[in-house]
């Protein structure tokens, strides 16, 4: 990592750490959401930016993890130390099942993950005796492990920030690892990878489960932030926005998904304050991104750097 990059990262971390002291609870809450949904977008991008698979069901893992943790804590009084890992495990287990979708490619994969995503939403919606239906699960407490517990939103902000930073570093190692390179090879030419000895199906499956685990972690972070979960958490718009966030920020990067989350959440917040058709505005953002900025913010930044370098 070169010096400029390290400096930028340090400044960003410092700013993130300082945020609760300079901005009010509203902004802190919004930025916490950006971290959480950025992580969800990151999980989707492991598949999109690196393996070339466009998954539309990541909200399912997010929601299943959130519901599992919520139900365990609220209904069965299970402490965080067990409820949180259980949430992650549940979401990951679902990813292990939905991972069968990697038997397909291209359009089929997109459509199948879209349909699978609906299963979870549908179950959350109709199995009201267990999931609470549209009312969801409420009164989720702040996380607490033994004597140490989160007591304020500010403390939770720092917890989320710490988790995100750890995830980002871990993710960076993952995508630079032999496994990560393998995924990019599959994206570039699956046929060549097979002829070189790679069991591409297995690689993609492993990536799918890993990405599901990451999405599940985001779900657990979400439910402790929101203190509440309902079927919307597992809905199609959440899945498709996660992918859009990755694209807007720049796929194939670590920072891109978080940038994208900041843009989407910030935009939605701003627009909905004065315009009621903000879903339409989101739709226009989708269209605009696809037509004019398919490489996202990081892509634009890269083009700027290249242009500057060319000028000398």
């Amino acid at each position: 990592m070169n010096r400029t990059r390290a400096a930028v990262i340090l400044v960003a971390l410092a700013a993130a750490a300082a945020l609760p002291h300079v901005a009010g609870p509203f902004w802190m809450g919004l930025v916490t959401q950006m971290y959480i949904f950025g992580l969800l977008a990151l999980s989707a991008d492991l598949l999109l930016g690196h393996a070339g698979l466009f998954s539309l069901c990541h909200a399912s893992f997010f929601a299943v993890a959130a519901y599992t943790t919520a139900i365990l804590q609220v209904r069965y009084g299970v402490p965080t130390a067990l409820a949180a890992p259980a949430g992650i495990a549940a979401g990951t287990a679902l990813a292990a099942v939905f991972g069968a979708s990697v038997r397909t490619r291209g359009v089929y994969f997109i459509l199948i993950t879209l349909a699978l995503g609906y299963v979870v939403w549908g179950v959350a919606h109709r199995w009201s005796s267990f999931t609470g239906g549209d009312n969801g699960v409420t009164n989720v407490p702040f996380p607490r492990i033994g004597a140490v517990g989160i007591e304020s939103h500010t403390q939770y902000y720092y917890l989320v920030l710490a988790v995100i930073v750890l995830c980002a570093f871990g993710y960076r190692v993952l995508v630079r690892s032999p496994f990560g390179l393998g995924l990019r090879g599959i994206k570039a030419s699956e046929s060549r990878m097979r002829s070189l000895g790679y069991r591409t199906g297995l690689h993609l499956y492993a990536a799918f489960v890993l990405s599901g685990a990451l999405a599940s972690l985001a779900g657990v972070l979400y439910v402790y932030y929101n203190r509440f979960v309902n079927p919307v958490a597992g809905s199609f718009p959440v899945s498709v926005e996660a992918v859009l966030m990755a694209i807007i920020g720049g796929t194939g990067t670590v920072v891109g998904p978080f940038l994208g989350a900041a843009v989407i959440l910030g935009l939605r917040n701003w627009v909905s304050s004065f315009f009621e058709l903000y879903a339409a505005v989101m739709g226009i953002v989708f269209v605009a991104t696809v037509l004019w900025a398919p490489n996202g913010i990081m892509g634009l930044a890269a083009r700027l750097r290249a242009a500057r370098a060319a000028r000398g």
Partner: protein
Amino acid sequence: MTEAAIQVGALAKEFGGLRAVDGVTLSVAAGERRALIGPNGAGKTTLFHCITGTLRPSSGTVRLFGREVTRLAESRRTALGMGRTFQISNVFTDLTALENLTLALLGTDRRKWIVHRPIGAFAHLRERALEGLERVGLADRADRAVRELSYGERRQLELALALNSNPRVLLLDEPCAGLAPLERQRISQMIATLPRAITLVMIEHDMDVALGLADRVTVLHRGRVILEGTPAEVQANPEVREVYFGHV
């Protein structure tokens, strides 16, 4: 008697109503250089696909060093020592030349599953990848994206990838296709200097290259073997000349 490197038994491949490969039996000895020639549409590439596992044959068998691999997945055959190049350059265009070779090296290596250490930490791997690039004259292109390489350079990379997947048998599908004479010479020179530890089967339209490099030649026409023999025998055979040159 040592077993054949490749043994194909009554292989057939049908597409709809068309029998692209129509009962081919051939045997390539270990260390041999075999050329597979025939006019366009003779079924050469389809035969290759069946041998490497890209396609499943409709009937017949394929053996690799005595082991039956007819229904085995392509990636498993590579693990057993099968390597190939593609007629149309099939390299990783979005990645650098070095990354291309790294992938080739890792294909038959357990370390491809490592998730917790960056590739940069494997110095030995990088060395071998650079060596692989040097062997085909692309060392100075190591950090360039393949997208930036010329067609000839991509053909060189194509060969390098196959060579670095640890092959015992190498199937070359028109390695000189679309190359200028000088590049052609370079590639055929590289092929000629490959160790006999690697068995070679080569599809090639350039008769000089094919007959120059081969120990034995198999001639395919309409999915069937019509002749097999030494380069001299094949060149002298009138039926071959009609079938092959009659189509030019």
